[in-house]
C-alpha cells in the first residue's frame, strides 16, 4: 500500500464486519481504521490504482474479514471526514 505522494490517487473506503483493534493499522499500511458504533470498521485511505485496490481487498479477504462495501470517496483528502461519517451511520 505504498502511495507515492505525486501519484494520482483515489480515496477509497472499505467497510468490514467487526471492530478492529489498533494493531491492524500496521497491517493495512497507510490506511486509517475507524471503528463505527454499529460494530463495523472503515478502512480508508489513498489507493493509487485498480491493482492496489484489488491488493487491499485481497488483504481483507486473507485476514478472514467480511467485506460489506467498497466506495470511492473522491481523490481529495480534505473532502472526507470519517468522524463526520460516523455520526451519520
Amino acid at each position: 500500500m505504498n502511495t507515492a505522494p505525486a501519484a494520482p490517487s483515489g480515496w477509497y473506503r472499505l467497510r468490514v464486519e467487526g471492530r478492529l483493534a489498533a494493531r491492524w493499522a500496521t497491517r493495512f499500511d497507510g490506511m486509517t481504521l475507524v471503528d463505527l458504533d454499529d460494530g463495523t470498521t472503515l478502512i480508508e485511505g489513498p489507493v493509487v490504482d485498480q491493482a492496489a485496490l484489488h491488493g487491499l481487498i485481497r488483504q481483507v479477504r486473507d485476514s478472514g474479514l467480511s467485506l460489506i462495501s467498497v466506495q470511492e470517496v473522491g481523490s481529495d483528502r480534505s473532502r472526507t471526514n470519517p468522524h463526520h461519517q460516523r455520526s451519520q451511520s
Partner: protein
Amino acid sequence: METKLLVPQTRGDVVARKRLTEVLDRGRSARLTLVSAPAGFGKTTLLTRWLADRSTPVAWVSLEEGDSRPLRFWGYLVAAVQRAAPGVGDGAAAMLQRGRPDLDTVVATLVNELATAATELVLVLDDYHLVDDPALQACMVDLVEHLPAKVQLVISTRVDPALPLARMRARGELVEVRAADLRFTLPEVASYLTEVSALELSPDEVSVLESRTEGWIAALQLAALSLRGREETSAFIADFAGDDRYVVDYLVEEVLDRQSAPVRQFLLQTSVLDRLSGPLCAAVTGDPDSQRMLEQLERANLFVVPLDGRRRWYRYHHLFGEVLRTYLLDAHPGEVAELHRRASRWYDEAGDPVSAVRHAVAAGDVDRAADLAELALPTLQRDRQEGTVVEWVGVFPDELVHARPVLAHGFVSALMSSGQFDGVRERLDELEQRVPAGRGDPPQGTVVVDRAAWERLPGSMALHRSGLALIEGDPDATIAHAEQAMSRAAKDDHLTRAGAAATAGLARWTRGELEDAHRFYSLAVDGLRRVGHVSDVLGCSITLADLRITQGRLEDARCTYEDALRLAEHDPAPVTRGVADMHVGLSEVALARNDLAAAAHHLERSRVLGDAGGLPQHPYRSRVAQAGLAAAEGDVARAVELLDDAERVYFGDFAPNVRPIPSMRARLHLALGNLDAAASWARARRLSAGDQLSYLREHEHLTLAMVLLAQHRAGRAGALEDATRLLERLRLAAQEGGRHGNLLEVLVQLALAAWTAGQRSGAAELVRRALVIAEREGHVRVFLDAGPALAAVLRTVSPNSSGGRHAARVLGVASPVLALPLVDQLSERELDVLRYLDTDLGGPEIARELSVSVNTVRTHTRHIYAKLGASNRREAVRAAVRLGLLRTARR
C-alpha cells in the same frame, strides 16, 4: 517440495459431517466439485476427512503463491497424478521438460493418459485462489471439459474460479459446497465443543457461541482454545457475546494471552515462515527446543498444520498465520527483518538457495539476496531449474542487476533456455558494455561474487550470441560468434567449448555442409563426455546419426547409436534420458534396410522406456519412426495418423527441420492416391519446380517432384518435364553436398521419370547408379517406397552388371507393394473398374458407367481379383486400398 503433493494430515478429532461428505460423493458424477468459501471455513479439513474414508487414489496439490506460472502449475498437477497412479502422466511430464512445451498438448496428453488408465482418481487442487490467473484459464477450461468421468476434479478456493460455473450449474455438472454449507449447524457446534473439545457447556452457552461465531469453524476453534481450562466459562462467553470486535482478532488475543511468554514469542517470531521445521524455527527463534515446541503446538491444536507424516514440516493455518503476522508487525516491527534474515541464513546453509533468496529479499537485504542468487546459478542451471531463475528477473531491481554481470548473464541464460528470447539481445548488448572481452578483474562499480563464473563470462556471452543467431536463422553469425566463444573460453571450460562447437555444427548443418557439421558436433560430444553430461551426449548422438543418414552412411549411423548406448550403460543413473531416443534411431536405420522385425523390436524397446526415458524430441521422433514402420507394413492410413500425432508434439531442439512432417505426409498421401491433398500441400508451401534450391528445402522439393510425376500420370501437361528438370537440379545439389542418402531418393525418382517418358535404358542406368550406392550400406526401403512402377525398372538391370545383385535382392524382398506388379500390373481399364468396385454399383451399372459390355466388366474384374490375390469384391477393395491403388473414401 514433496509436501505440496501430500494430502494434509487429518486430526482424528474432527466432527464427522455426513451431510457434506455426501455432497462430495455426489461430485463423482459431476464435471467439477467446487468447495468455495472464505478462509477458516474448514475446506481442507472437510476434504481430507472425506478422502480418509475412501479408497480411490488421490492426486493432491497444495497450491501456493507463485504456482500460477503455467509450467510450474502443470508440473505439480502432472506430478501429483504420477504419484497417485504410477505410469499415468509420464507422457505429459516428458513434454513439460522441454524448453517451450505447448500446454494445450500437455493437457490433451494428460487427459488421454487419464482416459486410458485403469484406475479411478480424485484430483484435488487446494487453495486454487492462489493461482486463478488468466494464464491458466484456457487450459483449465480444457481440462474441466475433457476429463474422463472416472476422474473427480475437486477445486477448493476462497474465490470462485474463472471457469464457466454458471453453464455447468445449469447443466447439473457442478457440485458445490459453499460458505453457507460449511458453517457449523447448531448440532455440529455442540458436537464440536462438547465432544471433540470436551468442554462442559450448557445448551444455552453452545447456542450463544454458535450465534456469535455464525458457525465459522476458525472462530469456534479459537473459542474452544480460550475456554480450555478456564474456570469461569460463562463469564468469558458473556464477554465474548457482548463484544463487537472482529471475532478472530478478539479470540486470538484471548488465546495468546493465555499462552506462556515463550510460546507467545515463538508463535509471533515464526509467523514470518511459510513452512516450519524444528531446525529452521530454532535458527529463527534461537530456541534449540523448537522441535518439541512444534509438537506441543500441534498437540494443543495451536494453529499448526503438519505437512508430512514424520512431524518434520508444518505450516500455520493460513488465517491464523495472517493474524499472527499482524500481531508481530504491530508488537515488534523492528524485529521482522532480522527474523527473515535468520531464516535466509538457515535456508542457505540447508542448501535451499531459492528460499534463502526469498527471505533475504523479504528482509530487505537485496544485495545479499543477489549474492545468494549468483552463487546458486550453476546448480540451478545444471538441474534445469531455469524457471526459478526467470522468476528472479522480476525480483531484483534493474540497477542492481546491471552492476552484477554474472547475475545478469545468468538471467540471459535462463531466459534463453526457457525459450524467452524477447529482450535478450538488449540484455546481452548491455552486458557486453560492462564486460571486457579479454580476461581481467571486474571493472570498478561491478559486483562479482562467483569469480570462476566471471572468468567464463566472455566465452559464454559469445556462445549466447551464437545461440541467438541460430534461433534467428542466421548461420553465418552463428558460426562467427561460436568461433569467438571458442577463442575466448579457457582451455578447461568444456561446457562453453562444447556449446560453441554444437551451435557451429548446427549452423553448418543448416547450410548443408554435413562433413563440417559432423566434425564440430563430434567436438561438442567430446566436451560433454568429459564433464559427464551423458544425456546431452545422447542428444548430440541423434544429430550425429542424422547427419550420417543424410550422407547415406547407415552403418556409421548405427555405430553412433550403439556407442551412445554403451556409454549410457555405464551411467550410474537408473534410467538415462536419451536411451529411448537411441532405440528410435536404431529402428530408423533398420527400417532403411527393410529389416522390419528389428525396426519393430527397437521401437518396442523405446516404448517400454516411455516418453519419460526420452529426450525432449523423443515424443515427436518416435511417432515419425512408427509412421515409417506402419507405412512399410502397408498401413499407410495409420502412418498418416501417426504423422498427425507427431506434428502435434513436434520439438526440434535447435536442430534444423530437414524432414518436415507435412512433406512426409504429402508423400504418404501420394501413396494413398490422394493427389489433391499432396498438391494442395505443395501449393500451400508455395513450392515450384523453378525454385532456387537450398538444403533446408531439399525434402520438400523432392516431394514436389513426386507430386509432379503423379500429376503427369493424371494427365497434367508439362508436369513430367518440370519434374525431370527439378530432379536433375536436385541430383546435382545432393551430389555436391555429399548427401548420398538424399541422392539415392533423387536417382530413384529420376529413373521413374525416365521410365515414364519411355527412356528405358536411361531409366535402367539411373537405377543402376542408385543400386551401386545403396548396396554398400544396405539401403532397401528407398526402392520399395518408390512403389510398383520401379519394379519394372529394376527388372531391366542385368544381374551381371554392377548393381545387379542388389536389384535382385530388392526384388526378392517379399513386400506386398512390390510383389504385386512383379506378377502383373493393373491395366488402365482395370484400374477404372477397380474404382467402381469400391461403390455400391452392380456389374451392369458399372458397365453402363464405363460404356462397355457387362461381359467386359466381368473379365476385368476377374483379372483384378487374380492380380490382387482376392477371391471377392471386398477383398479386392481392401487389397487395393492397402496397396495405395484406391483412396480410402469408403472407410
